[in-house]
């Protein structure tokens, strides 16, 4: 994060709106404007006091180890504001060997900013007050949400002082390797920072490229399978959808499944096994997997899908199911996919399976996609999506509310990951990083480009109904299978239905997280 802040200092020279002052934050920088220079000096003077101040932290922090941990952070004196000299002077108990880190370390010193916005009270608050402001948050363990939310508000208010203050604090506290709060802080802070610096798209691409370099068939397989082993997050949807597909295809002898999923075909082995064992006359199965890619990710994904295709074909042979496999790499929005171009034979019954991919469609194109689907007239479409309303707005109130919902959603996700994976799990880290990229996409990138804008089941349902679909209820057997599936996992998972919305929900600690439903064209 330090590097990011360093970056800010340079960029701030170019952005006049975000920050009131352009500060090249090297404490000994003589290039800084004269006015800043004064503050620098002040800064240095006060650091000792800040030192003292931070020692105070111990006084009112609880004895939980966490707060001690926090104290470590505080011991490196970095007061955002120091305006008035602190009145308490306890002797510094810990020797903070880190010399008062140059302000450049954080890229900004609030000292020069304090004059920028006289109307806002807390601009003038001393550093310790800021921390004290959140003392409740710390004792209640809600510091991450509180800080992040206030940061979002500061963004909405365009209060850069405040924002920087909070971001500084978050930076101190966050870590992608810590607990859930620290992880959330880390990824959201990163996204907020990119938003501030208008580098969201670039940051996202950097993060994506980094992950794609590591992407291989083995790593993908390991990730997907491990996730499915410890958590029903994806298998819930698989079991529900496969059940609905089996029911819909009952009696058909040629099946064609169009699969638009983000689970790398891990859904299909169990379906193939069911087809092989439960049908008297094994039908022919064709599987067309559509992978929606950004242009630069194509080759890596292609390789992975090729290998996946190999395995699927082999497995189908093992199962004794006549099988055809095809992959379509679609670049661009999913709604542009021409379903009629897919090679479907006349006597094939078609199912279209969406697992975690409807959210990638541009908001305004979703109805268009459903209309196209309806005209395509598949026998059934199965949908699995995460239950959240992440239609984060661009500014103001909409932004804050959307941000809050994002925070809520990713908190649940991270907690679910944390509790189900072993403590040190590379797979969990990969999933968290992917979530971090999603946060970046939502917070720092434009809604037009976003591929993570989840909608609630209610919203999807109303879209589908409006486009000429009606819901198909899951049979009792399917529901039983889902319940049995959940029993095979650890505690905390549940299943429910909603009165107003078709389909079933996966619950994590009573909160709906994943929605699965089946529809057919009217």
């Amino acid at each position: 994060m330090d590097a990011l802040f360093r970056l800010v200092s340079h960029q701030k020279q170019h952005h006049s709106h975000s920050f009131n002052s352009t500060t090249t934050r090297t404490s000994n920088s003589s290039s800084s404007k004269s006015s800043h220079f004064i503050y620098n000096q002040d800064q240095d003077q006060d650091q000792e006091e800040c030192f003292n101040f931070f020692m105070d932290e111990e006084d009112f922090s609880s004895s939980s180890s966490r707060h001690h941990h926090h104290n470590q952070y505080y011991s490196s004196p970095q007061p955002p504001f120091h305006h008035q000299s602190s009145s308490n002077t306890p002797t510094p108990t810990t020797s903070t060997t880190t010399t008062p880190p140059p302000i450049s370390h954080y890229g900004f010193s609030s000292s020069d900013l304090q004059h920028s916005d006289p109307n806002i009270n807390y601009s003038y608050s001393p550093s310790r007050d800021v921390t004290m402001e959140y003392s409740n948050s710390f004792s209640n363990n809600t510091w991450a949400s509180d800080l992040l939310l206030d940061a979002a508000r500061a963004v909405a208010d365009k209060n850069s002082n405040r924002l920087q203050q909070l971001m500084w604090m978050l930076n101190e506290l966050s870590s992608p390797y810590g607990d859930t709060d620290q992880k959330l802080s880390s990824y959201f802070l990163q996204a907020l920072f990119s938003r501030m610096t208008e580098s969201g798209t670039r940051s996202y691409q950097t993060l994506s490229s980094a992950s794609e370099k590591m992407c291989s068939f083995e790593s993908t397989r390991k990730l997907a399978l491990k996730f499915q082993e410890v958590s029903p997050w994806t298998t819930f949807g698989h079991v529900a959808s496969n059940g609905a597909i089996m029911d819909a295809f009952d009696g058909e002898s040629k099946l064609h499944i169009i699969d638009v999923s983000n689970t790398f075909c891990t859904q299909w082995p169990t379906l193939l096994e069911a087809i092989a064992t439960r049908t008297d006359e094994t039908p022919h199965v064709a599987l067309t997997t559509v992978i929606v890619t950004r242009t630069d990710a194509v080759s890596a994904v292609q390789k992975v899908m090729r290998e996946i295709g190999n395995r699927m074909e082999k497995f189908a042979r093992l199962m004794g199911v006549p099988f055809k496999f095809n992959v379509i790499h679609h670049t661009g929005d999913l709604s542009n996919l021409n379903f009629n171009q897919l090679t479907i034979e006349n006597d094939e019954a078609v199912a279209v399976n969406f697992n975690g991919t409807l959210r990638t469609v541009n908001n305004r194109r979703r109805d268009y996609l459903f209309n196209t689907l309806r005209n395509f007239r598949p026998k059934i479409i199965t949908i699995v999506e995460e239950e959240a309303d992440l239609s984060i707005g661009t500014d103001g109130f909409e932004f804050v509310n959307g941000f809050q919902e994002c925070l809520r959603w990713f908190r649940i996700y991270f907690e679910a990951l944390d509790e189900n994976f072993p403590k040190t799990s590379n797979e969990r880290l990969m999933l968290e990083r992917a979530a971090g990229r999603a946060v970046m996409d939502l917070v720092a990138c434009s809604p037009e480009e976003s591929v993570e804008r989840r909608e609630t089941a209610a919203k999807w349902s109303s879209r589908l109904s409006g486009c000429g679909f009606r819901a198909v209820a899951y049979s009792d057997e399917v529901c039983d299978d889902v319940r049995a599936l959940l029993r095979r996992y650890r505690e905390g998972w549940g299943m429910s239905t909603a009165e107003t919305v078709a389909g079933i929900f996966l619950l994590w600690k009573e909160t709906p997280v994943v929605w699965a439903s089946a529809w057919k064209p009217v």
Partner: protein
Amino acid sequence: MMFSASVYSSSNKTSTSLSDQDAATSTVSPVITSKIHHDQFTPSITLSSISSHVQEHDHLYPSPQKIKKKRNLPGNPDPDAEVIALSPKTLMATNRFVCEICNKGFQRDQNLQLHRRGHNLPWKLKQRNNKDEVKKRAYVCPEPTCVHHHPSRALGDLTGIKKHFCRKHGEKKWKCDKCSKIYAVQSDWKAHSKTCGTREYRCDCGTLFSRKDSFITHRAFCDALAEETARLSAAAAASISIPNTHHPSIINNVTNTPFNIQLSSQNSTTSLFHFNHNHPNPTWIPTQDPNPARIKPETINHPHRPTHHLLPAISLPYYQDPDPTRIISRAPATFHGLHVSTGVHQPPAHHLSATALLQKAATVGHVVDHVGSTMSGLDMGELGHVTSSVGYHQHVGLTSGSIATWHKTDRLTRDFLGLTGDQEVDHHGGVEANVNVRSMLTYTGGIEIPADGGFGTSGSDAWGNC
């Protein structure tokens, strides 16, 4: 007994006679008795001889002509037995044994007897009426649509008929809490619960799973599955002078996965798709004949496969082709020709019995995974347990896959043992197969393909000759 005759005549729809006198037992009501209708069947043997025959040999059929059903199917009762038809209510009644004195009902006879002692009956009445006990009883299912409704298919055991009625026609009230399977009979449910979840699945790679679904998903993507073909492909590539990659179009069109591993062609999946689209996919038997369609392609393979070991140079490329079914099924004549050309006499594969083929296959050193799997399949249901001595069964990993295949192998056996017609269907499937086999055989280098003979004629003639 007249009963015996009707038992073995399935066309005889009349009900059997019970004992000539009343058939009412002391325990149940109502009981239906009926008489046989002689006019509806014409036994070649007189009834008396039938019954005496039966009495001499307890469970032998009196005469072959009369026997329509095999004895070992359930619900072929002792012809001497008294057929009792109970109503569903009676069947399900828990207190079948009723004390004649106070009409108290008991679940078990022993309990009733214990109870009766308490009545201080005079000694004579205490004794149970033994006349009724000697007769064997057979019970019919009250459900009219049931196959066991007919006395000829009555079940010999009261508990048996009760369980049957519950299982087939009853409401499933018992549910396994682990896997949500439901049962109508409590003992079934208990038995299942004991084993549910305890079953473990082992993948070829050595990993153990307690959950079937995670096992299946793992298996599908496991390297152990891919290893076989990769190893064989590599071995084949090494041994063949002209690598198969020289003819990617052919091979791609013909084969599936193994080549995909070797070839970097991006078109592999799509061309595969197209090919399959254009031709009745040779991977599986065309749907004209549903029976073979159910058979795993590999299982059809291996009857013929053992012949390969006689042609070592050719064997590997064949193993590369995961679906030599097609080749074989389209060209048994080919092999015939091959055999001729190499001077080895071998009867056409399909004339060999299953056991013989198994033994032959056992001598083949290096087998493709699905051949091994078919070996296990042919093993007739030894799930995951391949008895053939060759170590290739370890490649099979069909612990669950074999579930899918083994119950289809009986058809397989019958089919390939009795086959001719099935294969005809595939013969005219396409020129590609022809070409492919030809080219593959050509590349082995070790075999001289005769200008005539199996491959002499291009097109479907060669196939058509078989």
